[in-house]
Each structure stands twice: as C-alpha cells, then as structure tokens.
C-alpha cells in the first residue's frame, strides 16, 4: 500500500503513532515514505526518533543514513554508517569462540 497509495499509508502510520508514540516501525515507515517523496527533513525527523527509540535497529539506522546522505549531510551519514557497520559485522573468530563456549572440539574427519 505504501508504494501504491502513499497518502493512505501515511495516514494509517500516523494514526498508529497516535495510539502508540513508541512504535518505531511506524516511524521508520513514515521516514521511508518521506524519503521517497524527497521530503528529506521530515524523513530525518521520523528516523531520528526511531533510532532514539531503538538504537540497535538496523532498518532505522540504515534508512536514517540514507536520508542524511540524500539530504547532503555527509558527516551525519558517515557517522550512521559507522554505527550500522558495527551492528552488521560479526567479530572475526566468532566460530572459534562459539566452540570454546560450548567446550567442544572440532569433530573428527
């Protein structure tokens, strides 16, 4: 619906937020709608609120990063990108650590 009828979608997401202002999913959706229609400042506003509510939300951070980028706020985009990168990348040696925790050895071949 968001792509076919953005106005109706916007109305429903806003209504959802009236019922529950902490609904990060609705803020992300509104941010994406605003971004798609070139309303960068509105998009950033919604997405910043979403990130505040859910600091580790990948969809919120990712779309905020894109909104900053599209608005020409390169430094903010890079900072969001760095935060997101930390969330995305599992540490090297994750598997070895995992095995250690389990107290297992590599199975025999």
């Amino acid at each position, binding site marked *: 619906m968001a792509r076919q009828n953005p106005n109706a979608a916007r109305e429903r997401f806003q209504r959802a937020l009236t019922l529950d202002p902490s609904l990060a999913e609705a803020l992300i959706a509104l941010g994406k709608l605003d971004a798609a229609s070139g309303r960068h400042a509105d998009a950033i506003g919604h997405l910043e609120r979403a990130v505040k509510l859910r600091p580790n939300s990948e*969809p919120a951070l990712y779309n905020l990063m894109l909104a900053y*980028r599209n608005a020409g706020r390169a430094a903010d985009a890079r900072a969001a990108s760095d935060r997101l990168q930390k969330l*995305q*990348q599992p540490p090297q040696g994750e*598997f*070895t650590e*995992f095995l250690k925790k389990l107290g297992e050895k*590599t199975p025999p071949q």
Partner: protein
Amino acid sequence: MTRAALLLLVAAAFLLFGAAALQPSFENAAARYGFTHSFPNGGPTESQPTKKYIIETTGSGVGWIDYDNDGYLDAVLLSGDGGTSRLYHNETGRKLRDVSAETGFFTSGWAQGICAGDTDNDGFTDFVVTHWGSSTLFHNQASRRFRRIELPTGPNRYNTGCAFIDYDRDGDLDLVISNYLRFDYSSVPLPGANPYCFYRNLAVNCGPRGLDFDRNILLRNDGGLKFTDVSAASGIAGPNRNYALGVLTGDFDGDGWTDIFIACDQTPSLLYINQRHGTFVEEGLLRGAALDEHGKALSGMGAAAGDADGDGWLDIFRTNFSDEYSTLYRNRGNGEFEDATVAAGLSANTHYVGWGTGFLDFDNDGWKDLLLVNGHVFPEADRLPGPVRFRQRSILYRNIGKGRFADVSSATGPGIAEPRVARGAAFGDFDNDGAVDILVNNQNEPPSLLRLQKPAPSNWIILKLEGRHSNRSALGAKVSVTANGRTQIDEVRSGGSYLSQNDLRLHFGLGSSPQAERIEVLWPSGKKQLLLGVRGGRVLLVAEPDDR
C-alpha cells in the same frame, strides 16, 4: 453469427496466435552444439548422497572468450574436483569442439572463477582461472597454446570471483580476486556438527557463517607478465569481514575511473570506489549498495551491471539466497544507490538461490532485460515441504521500460523452465545472429546453452572495441548508443555474472531502427570517438583512434 462477428473472431485468433508466435523462446541447445560433458562439483553423486563441505556448493564459472580472434566466441567451462576444466573452439557458430589438449589448457582441483583480458596487449585474450588453493593466468600464445603462470595469491586461498581492471589507467590490466573464506578439510566441521551446520532443522554442510573470513586481493600488472600484490596498499584488503564471491567492475560514480563491486554471502556487499591515485575506499554501506532496504545483509552470489531505467547510470543487480529476493540497486547518480527491487517488480521470486546473472536485451527492443540462473546449495532441500527445491529453473525478466520488469519465465521456452543446479553463466552471441546466448555451468551435469529458437525481429548491433593507447581489451571503455531517440549505455568489462566471463563485445538492441544514429566511445585513455549513422545487424570493430 454475423459476418462482422466472424471477422472479429478471426482477428482475435490471429492476434493471439501471432503474439504467441512472436514470443521469444529459449531452448537448451547444449548437446546439439557439442556440450555433452558433465563437470563434477562434489555431491550429490552415487557414492556421496549430499554435499559434505561448503567447497562443493560454490560451483564454477564459465566464459565466452574469443581466444583465436576468428570473430566467434569460444567457451571455457570450469570443473570442480575430480574433473578437468575444458576449452571449446567455436567452429563458426555451428559446433563447439574440445581443444583443451591441443592448446595445453589444463586445470585440476576446485576451479572457481574465470575472467579475461589481454594482459600483455599482444592482441590475444588471456584468462585467469581462480581455485581453492591458487589462481593461474593462462597466457595466450598467439592462439596456439596457453602458458600457465601461477599468480601470487598466496597458498590455500579460497579464490572465487575475479576481474581484470586497469585501475591506475596505465594501459595494462591489473587483476582483482575475491576470497570467500578460510577453508581446509581438517578444520571445517561435518554436517550437523554445530548450529551453523543446519538448514531448517536438517543437518547440512557448514558455513559460511561460523567460518573464518579472508580478504580480497588486487594484483598490479608490472609488465612482462609479472604481478605484484598491492592489496594492502590499495585498500582492497581493508574490509576483511565479508564472504566475498562475485566480482563486478564499472565506473559507478561516473568519474572516469573503474570501481569494484563484490557480492558477499551473508555479509554486506562491498563497493570499492577508485580514488584515482592507486587506492580504493570501500563505501558500499554509505552508498546504499551493501544491504537491502531494511538494512539487512543478504546472501549475495553474482552481480550484473546495466542501465535498467535508461537514466544513463549503471545500476547493479545482485543474486541472493532462497527466502530472499535478488536485489536491484538503482544508481541515483554519482554512484549513490537505493534498493529499487520492489518498485521494479523484481521481488516476487523468493524460492530460488540465484547465481549467474546478466543484463541482456533478448528481444532487442533497446531495454536491458535480466536473466538469472538458480540452484540450491543443499540437496536436503528436496526433503522439505514447500516450494524450495535443490534443482531450480532460471528466471527471465523482461524490461517493460524505465526500470520496471515483468517475469516472463513461464512463457519464454523450455530452456528457461529446465530445473538445474546452476552456478556460473556467461552471456554472449556465440553465432553472431544478433541474439545473446547464455552458457550455464550446471553442477554434475552437462552445461546448458540457452539459445533463442528464433532471434527477435528487432535490429541490433555488436561492438568489438580495441584499444591502442588504452588497454588492448578496452576494459573500462564506455559506450553510448542512440537509436529511436533513446540513448543506451554500457561498458566493456572483465568478469561479472557469477565467477564468469561474458562476451567482451557489447550488444545493443536497436528496436525498429535499422541503424544507430550515434555511437560515442569514451576510451580509458580519455579519448572520445564519435560514429554517426552506423548500420545495424552486424558486428562492428571499433579501434581507438591513433590521435590523442
């Protein structure tokens, strides 16, 4: 029935029949043209019912390479362990003949990827085959023999994709190689050994998650067929938390310097932006080409570049795993991307594990269509309820204009519908009839040759570019073709698809126009070349002008 009603009925029947007759139809013509040999790639076989290790899953690439300059694309098919890769000579588009022994082309072990380019600018196209273990340059000795030159990629690397690239624009070809992960039989667990070795509660081969990462490689061509590893100094080795597979090159930000995109499995894909002084900065995430629209890393395998929406910028299409859809990254300009998959109509197919892919104009209407070949990594998928299967058909999307696509797979012939365990796919017109043919490397089966039973009636032109001041293969040259009032763009590139080499020539559909009104070439040397009123329906050699 009145006479008018009868006429109406006849007209309707004619329209329906006519439309069906005009619908392009792909057949699998592999056996007819001489591709009957199977290429082993681990399980499942009679003695081994499944795939025990991840090395059996990534499969091998395929290349369309005219190694003897006779104007017809020859074919290279790579093999997994237990077989040997093969080179087939194209007998003027009528048959392909195995010439591996007579040309000295031989590989063993787990061959992965292939990429082509004229490394010493002698006029004969060389190629590289990557392996788990090492990578080899096959230097073309004036089309008579191939000389093996081992590349300094380090021992026991899981080299996967590759592409030649003149990243420093010095006129000779450098080489980028992706690395999947660190693999050896002694340390990788067996199926079911830990939680990373399960798929929907079934014990399967382990990885990539849970296995150690590796880094990617850039080899600088120092002349005399010598290469130096500049991975660290160039910034290519920097990101080392990615399971890297398909390599795709292109000038995505339009600054005249070739960039590198690498599709990564279960980790963010990489976009290395060329900084013009011998270094790259990885900006995939920031530029919107690493994740999907939800900020999630998908399982990238292969990748293709093309101008899907006709705005003059190269977009990127990346194939992914099942329960995901393949991703179209639309280039908004200057190399800033957005995930346009849903808006483009490409999000419905989620049961497929996609590998080789390419933008091709199969109906020659001037809009680039998309084809991807599929096949799961777990034979165990067949034991599960639901639509996900081990052998999977191909998918063909027709570009219906301005970056919107329609899935026409079910109406475009038996070749598309055949379920296979496909991996590499190379795109090129092997018989020079104006229709792009797709050679597909299937695991443990003969390859598929997807060929249009009847080429589209629309017009076309194929451009073979030859550099003089630029590298001889013209890698990085940008071409724009104007016909019917529309301008299309493309670039000459090595590698691409999934671990494969497409035709180095560029194919353009011209629609109803018998000629290209205007062809403009921007050579890597900076030289611009303009051709006006160029007749279509032929392969045209475009040599870089001597004057600078």
